[in-house]
């Protein structure tokens, strides 16, 4: 489990997090959402040990990431947003890197490369941006770490590749694997992520599972804009209204509408979900 307690973090004069506390339970695929610049990547870097909190603590299964101990590192993998690759083939890269990870599976790597339709024979720098991302995803998945952190994984992927991405993540992540997907393209990860964490400047606005969300928030699809809605958006054929679920009605979470509702009613929804 990942525990973040009273975390303060700033880059020189820019405060990113101020006294935030957060928990990520094992075995879930978290969606880490937030506007640009709120600190999604920074949070992932703090969890990976690439940055150190100025105050407060971050622990992953009781270990302190910033110490970068092998026991911690062999159980996590971070796939950054920017695709930076070596002048080698994905196969050679994973053979060189995989030996450090106890559950690394080369057969799985080959299988994933096939499913993601990436040419095995080509070097990274001969692959397109999307192909590189898919190759690195295959590498990351084949390491079978307990924690997998993906920063904007769908950026640069075409539509079929986005579907393949969702398919691979949901099919090959074990029940013990915790995945945190940082993204601002919420539609790409719809039906994949649960729970959702929404970050704001200095703050965490929401950290809840879909079950918890629909227990308190109702997503109403109807012909008209409702006055008591947190957020309303016009869709083809009507409106979606995000409202307090006072009558405990069942509905389907629309992540994009939820995100916008949270951003427009920060304190209200934060207090509602406590």
């Amino acid at each position: 489990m990942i525990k973040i307690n009273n975390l303060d973090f700033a880059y020189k004069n820019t405060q990113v997090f101020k006294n935030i506390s957060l928990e990520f339970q094992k075995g879930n695929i978290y969606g880490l959402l937030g506007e640009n610049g709120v600190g999604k990547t920074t949070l992932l870097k703090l969890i990976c040990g690439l940055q150190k909190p100025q105050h407060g603590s971050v622990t992953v299964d009781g270990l302190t990431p910033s110490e970068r101990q092998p026991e911690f590192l062999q159980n996590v993998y971070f796939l950054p947003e920017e695709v930076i690759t070596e002048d080698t083939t994905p196969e050679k890269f994973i053979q060189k890197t995989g030996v450090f990870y106890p559950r690394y599976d080369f057969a799985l790597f080959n299988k994933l490369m096939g499913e993601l339709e990436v040419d095995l024979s080509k070097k990274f720098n001969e692959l397109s941006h999307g192909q590189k991302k898919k190759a690195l995803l295959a590498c990351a998945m084949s390491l079978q770490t307990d924690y997998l952190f993906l920063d904007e994984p769908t950026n640069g992927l075409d539509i079929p590749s986005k579907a393949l991405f969702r398919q691979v993540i949901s099919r090959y992540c074990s029940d013990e694997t915790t995945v945190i997907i940082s993204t601002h393209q919420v539609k790409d990860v719809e039906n994949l992520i649960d729970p959702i964490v929404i970050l704001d400047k200095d703050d965490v606005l929401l950290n809840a599972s879909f079950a918890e969300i629909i227990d308190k928030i109702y997503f109403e699809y109807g012909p008209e804009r409702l006055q008591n809605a947190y957020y309303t958006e016009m869709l083809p054929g009507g409106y979606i209204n995000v409202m307090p679920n006072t009558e405990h009605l069942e509905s389907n979470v629309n992540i994009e509408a939820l995100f916008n509702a949270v951003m427009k009613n920060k304190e209200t929804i934060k207090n509602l979900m406590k």
Partner: protein
Amino acid sequence: MNNTFNINRFGKILKHDGLNFIPNSILTLAILWAIPVVIYLFTVLMPTNETTNIYDAMSRINVIDALLKIAVIIAPARLYKYCNDSRKGIGYAMLPASTLEKFLSMVIYCVIVTPIIYIAGALAIDSILALFNGPYEGFAASMYFDKFAQIDKSIVDHDVAGLLDDTWPIFVENLSPTFMTILSLLGILTLSSIFMFGNMIFKKRKTGKMIGVLILLSIIIMIIFINYVANNEALINYFEQINEDNVTEFIERMIFIWMNVALYTEIIISALLLWGTYRKIKTQKY
């Protein structure tokens, strides 16, 4: 799990860095190996004077040693260029090996492997060139590891005009080949430590910036030293009292001071910079 050092894990990081060694440094080494070949070809193809175009083994060893220093200076930035880069260094930082294991692997490739591979290649090329009936006299390989014993002999042999004064035997007597070999090896370690540390603190143009820092430091130290000597009356009086009768004692004292200063300075600088490099690997933020 031992999070500080594990031999199995260390073997893996050695192999990992070793696989990066060839693509990252072979071109640099090849260029350095090619320089003596170019000198050889230049001498063969453009002969000017028979006597001046003969290169004995000792002078070629000096060229090899100078190029070795360049190989050592360049190695950290070639092999571990991105290890402190906020984007490209993430892979290195996240490799499941301890700081000590990564540091030791870095030291092994920069301080041991690079010099050994460079010297082996350079001596092999020199031996091949010396086989031809060209301007190369003798084999550098045959006297490379005994070079400090050979230097005295070589200098005395070349002193056909009797230019060496009576002080030369004092140097020969006081500076043993063993001490000079130790100092030479320490020199490689110091040079490597300086540039490994520079590789960790600078993000771009690492080698050039570190050379700049060294030049600046040398100027500062020289100014301080000259000021100290110029304002130290006791020292000036001592220098003024040097004459033919006590010059031997003076030279012996200077050699003794130099030996100690050189030895301890190199040990202290290397230890501090290696520790600094280790700390930077451990605490680098990305």
